[in-house]
């Protein structure tokens, strides 16, 4: 029983990171109907940027993450601006454009930060909490709390602010939204910026748990993408549930199937998607293809 509970805790921590990555995917898809394949690499850029301000500039960890979120948010704006001329014209080219940006960002990271990568020390020195033999890392609790707060903030932004409502309107019917004076391009830009900011948050938080190098975005991106689809692509709550589900599934599969765990995770994922093609929350969002 203890093994199962400990596995669950480990899975939830990584699941929270996957959930944040999934949120980045879902938000852009929800607004634009576009899969931003550069999202994983933006996670990596966020991780590197946060670690640089934390380890080199010696700023507090939280401040370093906020700076990383702002910088990658700006990066999101740049990507959207470059892709904007294709909006409504060539959707496939937009998709390829995001893949191209991903490749470019990985190469750029190697040029800026080198090939070796870096280990980020944990900002919390407190020993793990022992609950009847179960060990809970204090940093894991922080990751779960931050992921929860980020989700609440995102939902509040989308549902309670004028800008958020405008983005929802664009998602539902871009032509009608334009007719009532909503700037579709600006709405898309905000979606890209917020999505990239969430990716940076995921990357920054993942740093002390993992190891930051240029390929970090690859593995986190794939799991985050799978999480978004599992939850219901474009659904905010779905991204969270999907992320946690993939994290926990991953951890249990590692214990039961060892070297074949990756295979098992994606077989289970495929079976679930075959039964529920629109994911757990059955989200139906825009498809401008």
């Amino acid at each position, binding site marked *: 029983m*203890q*093994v199962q509970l*400990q*596995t669950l*805790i*480990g*899975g939830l*921590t*990584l699941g929270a990171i996957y959930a944040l990555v999934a949120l980045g995917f879902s938000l852009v898809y929800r607004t634009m109907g576009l899969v931003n394949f550069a999202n994983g690499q933006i996670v990596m850029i966020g991780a590197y940027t946060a670690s640089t301000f934390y380890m080199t500039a010696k700023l507090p960890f939280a401040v370093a993450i906020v700076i990383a979120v702002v910088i990658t948010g700006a990066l999101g704006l740049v990507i959207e601006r470059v892709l904007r001329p294709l909006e409504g014209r060539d959707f496939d080219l937009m998709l390829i454009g995001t893949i191209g940006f991903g490749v470019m960002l*990985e*190469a750029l990271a*190697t040029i800026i930060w*080198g*090939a*070796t*990568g*870096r*280990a980020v*020390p*944990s900002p919390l020195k407190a020993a*793990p909490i*022992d609950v009847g033999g179960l*060990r809970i*890392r204090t940093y894991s609790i922080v990751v779960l709390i931050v992921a929860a707060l980020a989700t609440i903030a995102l939902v509040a932004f989308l549902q309670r602010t004028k800008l958020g409502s405008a983005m929802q309107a664009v998602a539902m019917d871009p032509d009608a939204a334009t007719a009532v004076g909503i700037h579709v391009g600006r709405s898309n830009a905000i979606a890209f910026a917020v999505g990239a900011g969430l990716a940076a948050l995921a990357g920054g938080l993942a740093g002390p*748990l*993992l*190891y930051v*190098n*240029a*390929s970090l975005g*690859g*593995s986190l991106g794939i799991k985050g993408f799978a999480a978004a689809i599992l939850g219901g692509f474009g659904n905010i709550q779905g991204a969270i549930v999907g992320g946690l589900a993939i*994290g926990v599934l*991953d*951890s*249990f599969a*590692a*214990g*039961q199937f*060892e*070297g074949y*765990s*990756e295979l098992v995770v994606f077989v289970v994922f495929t079976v679930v998607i075959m039964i529920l093609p629109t994911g757990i929350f059955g989200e139906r969002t825009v498809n401008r293809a």
Partner: protein
Amino acid sequence: MIPSTKTVLAVAASALLLVASGACSAPGSDEASGGSDSGPIKFALVDAQSGQLSSLGAWELKGAKLAVNEFNEAGGLDGRKVELTVFDDQGDPTTGTSIASKVTAGGYTAMIGTAESAVTLAMNPILKAAKVPSITSGQSPAISKLGSPFQFFNGPTSVTYDETLAKYLVEDKGYKTFAMISNNGGYGTGEHDAFKAALSSRNITPTDDKVVTTDQKDFSSVLTSIRGKNPDVLFIGTEEVEAGLIAKQARELGLKSVFAGAAPLSTPVYAQTAGNANVEGTIVSTPYLSNDATDASKKFAAAYKAAYNEEAELHGAKAYDGTNIFLTALKATNGEGGQKLADQIRATKYAGLLGSFAYDDQGVGIHETKIGLIKSGALTAAQ
């Protein structure tokens, strides 16, 4: 003036012919293949320069480059310079095979790399067929079993690493219970088999024998299972980043066992990923204990520091030794590659940073390792 269609077609056709004539040349038949006596001699360095194993590739490149630069500065081969071209295999065997074709078609005299056993295994048949000697930093016994006369190691194989380690742990330290974690990659599989065989020959069966994937990040499940049995030693048979994550999570979960393993556990990446406090007391089997061990290693470390402003470590030293062995043999063949160079490498006796190299039929040149202990974040010789 706008060129006519005919002119454009003629230029395009000429360009195609030029490309085709280059592509049709027999491998190694051009001037730079090593058989000629003028022009630069081309060496290929193949290693991960991106991806999770890129730290290994970066160290390898630095070590090899240092050796080549010293060779060229000392006058090269009667004035001929060695030219090092870098290929990024991304730690991926498929990319490796595609690079192997480029190396064989590109007239390279020799190949330095790779640091990954799986990539070395994938590239081997193509290099063997083209008779291009290569030296790997991988250590999987599966490579030596290939029996290629053109494949060499610049360090010991896992059998040597783990036999020495098991001997020390069981016979010198008297540890009785062992758990194992290895990954399902080329390196991890070799480590798993070698350490398990070394334990088995001492009548020890591990309490846990867990296999993880090369991409795994959370080890809660396997570590909690191991913690329940409280073994004296946890053997970690994975690359450095993964080994660091395992060590960190093991201590966070309250596992008290001593960590033990081979080369990856001697690297700064392992200690930094896990945190210095977590790796304290780790027992490592390695042919390169410290930069201060000998006059040669001090000289190498000083040159490395001057060139890259970094502390030298095992993988840089391995690549430096391997490249120097190839360069020494190259002098003896007067720049000739192929079978003659391979035979000469096998005949070369070389006093390197890792020890005295003397190659056997399987391409293994170093047959012993030392035991190190991590104390206050630094690797020291075990007493």
